[in-house]
């Protein structure tokens, strides 16, 4: 036997890159490196993008043992990343849902409870989701795929992952990368979108902050009732809203401080570590290196821009009916997306830039927190309505 053939196992991996499909794996290694660079050097959502980038490299190395492989002699050899995916996402969407417990425990709904009309901006700023579904439906014949792509506009990674998994979309990897990447780009996307549809005079509107006091009883009853209301309207949202509100109740009841802290720190960090790596299972070269991925990345931008525009235009619409002195600064509407707390900080910064005495932070935080509720409700409604429309 030729001596080179004897030692072929040493160079088969490298040789694979030069096969007909092997170049895609090379592209994925570069994409993995890019995600790690964006995470560690540019500080783009490092908690998710770094594990996703690393996972992308793990699963795209030729004949990687990190994913399920078929061996002529050994038969089926399971891989850890595919196992994590089957158990943690495919079986019951456990990972994004458990992460929501941690996120709920981190949220303080106080600014929203003391200024509840901000909820309406949390609704309006979900417009980008549905517009993106409409645009995606021109390019993706499968309506469930189009709906899963639209949920990038929820600006909420776990919701986007959950919806794409429930709809069994082949584009989950691209959707997850798009959702987390654009969340990190909110400080660039939102100012651009807001300036497109507002004038300087509108951006300078001042809003006095006179919060109502919020009792402990309200803080405890709020998550319970929200879960019931959202669950009755959109039953498929119960898991999403339920986990979020359970985490919040752990925080607000003040009797379970150690559980609340565990949810906010240990649980959230543990799931975040595993979720990023697990998503990589859907970033295999043959699934990810497609024109569909590029289109999805573009549609993600559409979703975020029109989320912001939807919220801003709704605020401008409300201003038609409001007297002078009580008008809403339209930028606050743009804070109704779920990217918390980045969006609120962006709005505050923009307001101070226009008028260094105009502090909109607490209004923006209220809208931003409302966006967290709005995005999970939107996800639940999509999970409920899309199957109805397909069946109908």
């Amino acid at each position, binding site marked *: 036997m030729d001596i080179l053939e004897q030692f072929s196992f040493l160079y088969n991996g490298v040789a694979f890159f030069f096969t007909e499909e092997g170049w895609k794996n090379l592209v994925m290694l570069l994409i993995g490196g890019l995600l790690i660079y964006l995470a560690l050097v540019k500080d783009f959502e490092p908690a998710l993008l770094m594990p996703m980038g690393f996972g992308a490299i793990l699963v795209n190395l030729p004949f990687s043992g990190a994913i399920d492989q078929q061996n002529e002699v050994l038969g089926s050899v399971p891989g850890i990343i595919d196992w994590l995916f089957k158990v943690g996402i495919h079986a019951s969407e456990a990972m994004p849902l458990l992460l929501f417990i941690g996120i709920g425990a981190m949220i303080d709904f106080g600014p929203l*409870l003391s200024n509840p009309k901000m909820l309406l901006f949390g609704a309006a700023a979900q417009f980008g989701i549905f517009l993106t579904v409409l645009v995606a439906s021109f390019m993706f014949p499968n309506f469930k795929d189009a709906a899963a792509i639209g949920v990038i506009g929820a600006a909420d990674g776990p919701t986007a992952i959950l919806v794409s998994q429930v709809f069994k979309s082949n584009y989950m990897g691209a959707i997850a990368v798009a959702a987390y990447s654009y969340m990190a780009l909110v400080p660039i996307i939102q100012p651009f979108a807001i300036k497109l549809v507002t004038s300087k005079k509108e951006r300078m509107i001042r809003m006095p902050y006179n919060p109502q006091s919020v009792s402990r009883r309200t803080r405890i009853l709020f998550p319970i009732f929200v879960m019931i209301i959202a669950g009755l309207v959109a039953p498929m949202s119960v898991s999403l809203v339920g986990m979020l509100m359970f985490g919040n109740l752990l925080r607000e009841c003040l009797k379970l401080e150690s559980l609340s802290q565990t949810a906010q720190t240990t649980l959230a960090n543990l799931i975040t570590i595993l979720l990023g790596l697990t998503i990589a299972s859907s970033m295999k070269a043959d699934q990810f290196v497609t024109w569909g991925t590029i289109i999805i990345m573009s549609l993600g931008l559409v979703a975020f821009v029109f989320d912001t525009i939807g919220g801003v235009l709704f605020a401008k619409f409300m201003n038609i009916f409001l007297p002078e002195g009580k008008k809403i600064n339209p930028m606050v509407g743009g804070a109704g997306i779920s990217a918390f707390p980045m969006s609120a900080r962006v709005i505050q910064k923009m307001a101070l830039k226009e008028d260094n005495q105009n502090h909109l932070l607490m209004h923006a935080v209220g809208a931003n927190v409302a966006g967290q509720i709005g995005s999970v409700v939107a996800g639940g409604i999509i999970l409920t309505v899309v199957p109805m429309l397909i069946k109908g």
Partner: protein
Amino acid sequence: MNLIMLAASAGQAMDIEFKPHNITESLVLMLMGMVGIFVVMAVILGLIVILNKATDEKKAQARKEKRQAKKAAKAQLKDNMRSI
């Protein structure tokens, strides 16, 4: 029309069909989705207003003090009537 043909041929090259596959369903989803979200948020808004009113600690304290003051005034009146 030319733009549509251009998009279609670009789509063919990318192995994607540029045509309104599910436009009616998407529009219906947009309508149902936005209305649904606004309805849910409006109900939650109403819930918050009711909860804030029902659990307002300052007002509850004020009501309690008012009740106590009324009780004290009644007791004082009774005492005065007895002494007369």
